[in-house]
């Protein structure tokens, strides 16, 4: 199994009317090794979501190359190697939670992958009692958990998560981080995780990529050497705080740089 993400020299420019243009990604290089958890953090407009969409094959770079497990993103999608968790749960409102997370099995069937037992997976995610309910009948945190289960259900080699917890409250968010780590521990996938929360990035990641805007680019890569599993207790340790401070410093650098360019 290989789920290595390799991004080389990727550039993406948006035309923004009146002859203007916005460089969302400028010569971005990034390698995410198989089975690692990498977060991308940065101020808004730094191109982190564009990067994720490009890896998902939802957007084509203007220059450079992206491979997922040695394949183009489109081929990787065709082989059902990718799982996407967007910012909103994006569940289908007319299907029960169980049917929602089972639908990926029915599409693109030619590519028969070994799929998880969805009932079992839902129970592990704490959704066993609500799996026959409609999305509108469960809380936002539960909906987002269902979206994660849906993505994990196909045992994807690569999981792409675009600020999946940003709409949730602090407590729900921490609980979901823990469950995400549990699921990831069991099902092992390469994860590219977009976030704007420093503590979330430190807790989840093997490595944090810091990006800066105008033009969108990578300014720092920080390895997080904290032991796993990373339970609630870890959040209070000095090592954890030291990493938080480090990331915050580097982020501040990215902010200042952006402002200096803008003024």
């Amino acid at each position: 199994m290989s789920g290595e993400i390799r991004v080389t020299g990727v550039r993406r420019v948006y035309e923004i009317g009146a002859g203007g243009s916005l460089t969302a990604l400028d010569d971005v290089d990034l390698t995410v090794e198989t089975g690692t958890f990498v977060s991308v953090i940065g101020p808004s407009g730094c191109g982190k979501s564009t990067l994720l969409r490009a890896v998902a094959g939802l957007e084509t770079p203007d220059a450079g190359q992206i491979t997922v497990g040695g394949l183009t993103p489109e081929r990787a999608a065709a082989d059902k190697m990718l799982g996407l968790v967007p910012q909103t749960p994006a569940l289908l409102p007319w299907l029960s939670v169980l049917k929602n997370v089972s639908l990926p099995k029915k599409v693109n069937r030619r590519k028969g992958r070994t799929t998880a037992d969805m009932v079992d997976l839902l129970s592990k995610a704490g959704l066993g009692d609500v799996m026959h309910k409609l999305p509108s009948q469960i809380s936002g945190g539960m909906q987002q958990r269902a979206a994660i289960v849906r993505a994990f259900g196909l045992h994807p080699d690569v999981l792409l998560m675009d600020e999946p917890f940003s709409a949730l409250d602090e407590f729900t968010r921490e609980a979901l981080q823990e469950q995400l780590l549990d699921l990831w521990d069991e099902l092992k996938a390469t994860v590219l995780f977009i976030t704007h929360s420093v503590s979330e990035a430190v807790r989840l990641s093997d490595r944090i990529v810091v990006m800066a805007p105008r033009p969108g680019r990578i300014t720092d890569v920080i390895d997080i050497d904290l032991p796993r599993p990373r339970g609630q207790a870890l959040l209070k340790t000095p090592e954890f705080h030291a990493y938080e401070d480090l990331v915050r410093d580097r982020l501040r650098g990215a902010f200042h740089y952006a402002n200096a360019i803008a003024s």
Partner: protein
Amino acid sequence: MTLALVAKPRATSKRTFAFLHPAKWLPLVLMLAVLGALWQWGAGSMPYLLPPLGDIGQTLAQDAGYYLENALVTLREALGGLAIGTAVAFVLAVVVSEFTLARRAIMPVAVILNVTPLVAIAPALVVAFGFGAAPKLIVTGLICFFPVLINMSMGLRAVPLPVLQVYQTMHASRLETLWYIRVPSSLPYLFAALRIVFPLSVVGAVVAELSAAGSSKGLGTAISLASSMNRLAAVYASIAILAVLGSLLLLVVTLLERRLLHWHETRAGAK
């Protein structure tokens, strides 16, 4: 199955019998009483404008068989035209929502068809197709076609982008996306259109019957016959049946909607 829906939630007896509460039915009953009194007063002072309600009732009772037979003819035309118009619109909506070029070709023609008064087309169709069922089905079909086409083509494209992206990264085919995602999520839009075209189908059938002066059956024909003989009570007897038919069709569509769209958010807070 996508369209096989989950059992209806919280259908409590409290909700089922809510309509028995006077606050639910009393306002309507009072309103009907006021309107009935006004009608009777009008009929008393201007007998050439309005027939007394009693006369209408008597006409209906005397010729019950005649009115039932004609009502069934009109209803059959209405439902037939409704089925044809809705089915064609549904298929075309899928085509125009999937293929941009088809949309550019078809939608302007549909709009032109819609702004052309159907009352004006009906006589031409009678000339072309005679006094049988064909022109009635065509007129009714045309009148039902446009609202369904517009709403469905909107509904099929109203899927939130994140949903489409999730399934795009699994390489769901266009057909799969259409069947599992676009069609079910367009159902609320379809029902919004059906609420309009179910009652409208009766209008289509009657307009076609009125245009075909020689046709022998249907409530539209009954109306033109009765009015040519100055039988005002008979005219209103047919009109009353048409009003009931339209209301029944609206009731059917409402019940269907309640059954199929219980998941939809505008239904969640429905009283």
